[in-house]
């Protein structure tokens, strides 16, 4: 660690301290990790019922997805959301702005977004380590729904798409948190975001099920990177060329959202009133 450049050492230290913090409440954390698997069980049963009602057994295909494809899609969406959802990030930033706790980022030689980013990376990493066994179990139980083991190239692209899911999710939610510089309270914004991202990210339905006129516009938005893109990549829904375009566009969205975050932070700090004593 001593040989690291100072800026990397700070990131590493934030990361390490955040891991220690995440493990402070072990029981709550373990419970929260396990409880996140419940929705997937209901989804599997729900899609089972929908497909059963859709026609004779041999013709049970909806928009080119068989029941097995749909279960696989749902599982992969769950993985995508595990990377892109940022519980408490928006409300945490807003709370810090509202009650003045943000002062520690402004008076110390540390970048607030950088700090929050490594803090979140640490929390996610702890989550993945703890959730690895239940995830592996669920995928093993549902292994028959997948069409064979993906190629190394597909797995590599899937890995990139998950990184993009994390970055896009982090940047959208931190941007919403920074809105608190103007509105102080963002809980309604968070609620609206949860509603629309559930639909626009492909969490509710695969985005390629939407009518082309609507689907075209929705696919131009960054929300698909939160869930749909990682699932579509692993299910090999994209051609090679499409895959490259999707991943490059994801990087473009990360850059755009990053710049928007920087802009919101610098403008927000100009009007910040340091409330809360």
């Amino acid at each position: 660690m001593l040989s690291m450049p100072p800026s990397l050492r700070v990131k590493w230290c934030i990361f390490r301290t955040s891991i220690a913090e995440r493990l402070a409440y072990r029981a709550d954390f373990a419970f929260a990790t396990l409880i996140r698997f419940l929705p997937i069980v209901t989804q599997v049963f729900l899609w089972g019922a929908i497909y059963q009602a859709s026609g004779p057994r041999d013709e049970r295909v909806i928009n080119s997805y068989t029941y097995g494809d749909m279960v696989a899609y749902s599982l992969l969406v769950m993985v995508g959301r595990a990377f892109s959802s940022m519980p408490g990030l928006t409300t945490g930033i807003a709370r810090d702005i509202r009650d003045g706790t943000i002062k520690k980022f402004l008076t110390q030689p540390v970048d607030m977004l950088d700090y929050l980013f490594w803090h979140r990376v640490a929390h996610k990493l702890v989550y993945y380590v703890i959730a690895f066994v239940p995830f592996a179990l669920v995928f093993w139980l549902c292994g028959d729904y997948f069409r064979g083991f993906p190629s190394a190239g597909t797995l590599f692209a899937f890995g990139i798409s998950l990184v993009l899911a994390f970055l896009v999710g982090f940047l959208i939610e931190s941007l919403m948190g920074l809105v608190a510089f103007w509105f102080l309270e963002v809980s309604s914004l968070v609620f609206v975001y949860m509603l629309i991202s559930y639909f626009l990210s492909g969490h509710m339905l695969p985005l390629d099920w939407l009518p082309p006129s609507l689907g075209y516009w929705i696919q131009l938005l960054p929300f698909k990177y939160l869930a749909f893109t990682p699932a579509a990549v692993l299910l090999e829904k994209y051609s090679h060329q499409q895959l490259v375009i999707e991943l490059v566009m994801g990087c473009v969205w990360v850059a755009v959202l990053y710049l928007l975050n920087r802009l919101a932070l610098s403008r927000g700090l100009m009007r910040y009133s340091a409330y809360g004593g």
Partner: protein
Amino acid sequence: MPIIEVSNLAKHYRVYQKRAGWMSSLTGLFHREYKQVRAVRDVSFQIERGEMVAFLGPNGAGKTTTLKLLSGLIHPTSGTATVLGYVPWHRENAYRKRFSLVMGQKNQLWWDLPAQESFILHREIYAIEPTQFQRRLDELTDLLEVRKLVGQPVRELSLGERMRMELIAALLHSPEVLLLDEPTIGLDVVSQRKVQGFLRHYQVEQQMTVLLTSHYMKDVEALCRRAIIINEGEIKHDGPLAEIIDRFSSVKQIELQFAGSEVPDDIERYGRVVERVPPRVKLEVPRHEIPRVLAALLDRYTIEDVGVQERPLEEVIAELFARKPDAREGEDA
């Protein structure tokens, strides 16, 4: 050359004015009334290296706002300020490495972790050389008597212990300027004295420049020789603490203990009775009449003990603050 230079600094806020009741809440959705609050008005002062200055004023006077401006938390509406040659609200890292802000009501340590984890993070953030860090940490934990507590989660510490940990975190990087906002708020007398004693010792040793706000006059009297009094966003006094009493109090107190068990009934003719616990009485008498009144009392009564003293600083300042209404009232709509 002054370390802190403030010139005509002003900060105005726009504050939403809501009347009571649900109808007001409803109309507030469409039309809101705001008023302009002048939290700081054309404040100017200079502080030299190694000075420890008290920044006094009633709630809402503009003290904390001034500290927030000097620490770069907020931008001013007008005016200029430099600290160590830096404009605080430019938030340059070079400046942020050379000062600290401690707010008694704000926590910057990681709540669920032992304070030592936060200290290590500070070591990296401020790029403190490890041996220097350890030496300073040992020194500070010894001085503040918390060495055994650094491994305990912050949430499990008492308020006094937590405040001392906050001070350690703020001082680990040896700041040249320390801005203290109510560092002893809510602490018991023992903790207050520990913090006071520490600050007095450490400030002298390190020659730190300190600007302190506190409502506890004991803090101020124990630590500062100079005081800046701010009220309604304006500076009312800037000079030695001792001058405050001369300048703002026209009376002194005479404390008498009469022989026997009673206080004479007509004692009011000599001055205003502040306290009467027979056979003792405390009178408030105009400064210039002290010799005459004292002579008359000694001539007329048998007095066992006598003392003449200034009014407590706290009383003088409280009276000074009470002369005008709260700064946040009566502003322009």
